[in-house]
């Protein structure tokens, strides 16, 4: 009985804090969900290989993971990856951070971007503007090893005023699992 009462009081207090916008903790945003980091298939957990390997902390060119083009900061894995716990990242302080909270790691250098991301200015949200929404994590859009955006192929140019009837068809393309229709023009 007493425990139930305590729980009720605590949740009421938490709710109050949330209403005041003070409940934004490192845990993020209780109402919202973040997407998962886009791991290459079979790569995670890292310990499935690394557990058996003694850590080599010397900054060097790796013999493995050669597909990774590291173009970020001063280009060293262990700036973010933790040598002791391979399934975690770490902050500059040494504090461990799980992969799905990696924005804390990014935010160490890109503090203002993290601030923008928290309030929805940086990055992308999908879902409901007045309900549940899904945040993209930093790595859903930026390759953490080479974060600069790669140029994209643009979708077709619009028809000019004399060409609005010169459309041959409307064909689907799939972008991020969404099917959208683009025009095919008469040559």
């Amino acid at each position, binding site marked *: 009985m007493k425990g139930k009462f305590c729980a009720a009081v605590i949740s009421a207090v938490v709710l109050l804090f949330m209403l005041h*916008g003070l409940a934004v903790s490192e845990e993020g945003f209780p109402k919202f969900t973040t997407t998962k980091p886009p791991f290459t298939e079979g790569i995670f957990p890292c310990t499935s290989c690394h557990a058996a390997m003694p850590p080599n902390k010397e900054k060097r060119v790796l013999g493995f993971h050669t597909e990774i083009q590291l173009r970020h900061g001063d280009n060293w894995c262990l700036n973010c990856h933790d040598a002791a716990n391979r399934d975690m990242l770490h902050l500059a302080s040494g504090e461990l951070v799980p992969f799905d909270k990696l924005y804390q790691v990014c935010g160490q250098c890109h503090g203002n971007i993290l601030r*923008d991301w928290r*309030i*929805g*200015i*940086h*990055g*992308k*949200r*999908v*879902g*409901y*503007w*007045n*309900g*549940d*929404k899904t945040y*993209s994590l930093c790595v859903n*859009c930026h390759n953490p090893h080479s974060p600069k*955006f790669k*140029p*994209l*192929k*643009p*979708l*077709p*140019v*619009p*028809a*000019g005023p004399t*060409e*609005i*009837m010169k*459309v041959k*068809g*409307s064909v*689907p*393309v799939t*972008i*991020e699992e*969404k*099917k*959208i*229709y*683009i*025009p095919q023009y008469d040559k």
Partner: protein
Amino acid sequence: MKRRDFIKSAAIGLGGLLMPADKSDASLWETFFQKYFREMTPEEKKSVAKRLEKEYKDKTGVSIDIKTNEALPRVKFGYGLDLSRCIGCRRCVYACVTENNLSRKPQVQYITVLEFKSGEKWVSDLEESRKYYEHETVPEPGHFYMPVQCQQCDRPPCVKVCPTGATWKEPDGIVVVDYNWCIGCRYCMAACPYGARKFNWADPQVPPEQFNPNTHYLGNRPKFKGHVEKCTFCIQRTRENPGRYPACVEICPVGARKFGNLLDPESEISQCIETKRVFRLKEELNTNPSFYYFFSL
């Protein structure tokens, strides 16, 4: 075929000419004398929606839903566009075309993406804009991009000039058109400073299998020739509880597009206005858009 349509519609009377010739006479009558949407009772709105659903089903065999729901209380929509992020990939253009059942032929698009050379004059009259840019990849070095769509002005010149009141501003801030009430005079197109209003110069064609069945009377329902249409912030998606983001927001690969309730201080758009320096297009015209451009970098 055309000749037969022509003779048939001429036989029905001049009235037949402006409506699809395959409609029954009763439906033709109801279409012709359909009331002004704002003066319909909720029941009348429903029955009109039913009739339009049936007409579309009879014509194409595809079932669609036409909603007539009203604005949510205490909501005023606002939109933000981050010009330092946009790369000009035009995905928003075609996500919009798909979601809003815009005519594929003749081509109708609500969003125009403009390309500018860095350092050249651009805002104000947008004379240096390039709309028909073609590159292998974007962004083109030395250029930047500005998408333009309906700015949902608080003092909309299009609403002011419409002779029949066929276009108006809803309580949630969306400027809508009653396509059936519009007479196609195109005065609103002359009045709009943002090139946001589009006219159906011919019968709009959308392949029925590509037709988005989730529609709203004031938004992406089936359209016909001779009336004006425009961006409605995806009214069929956003005017729900919970309401989805507009299609252009969700497709943007760089997250440059922000949407939310201006009356909610925690919404993305309110936060943009609060923390970034924003501007609105052609502010010298005093149209007070609900569409904010900003630079996050």
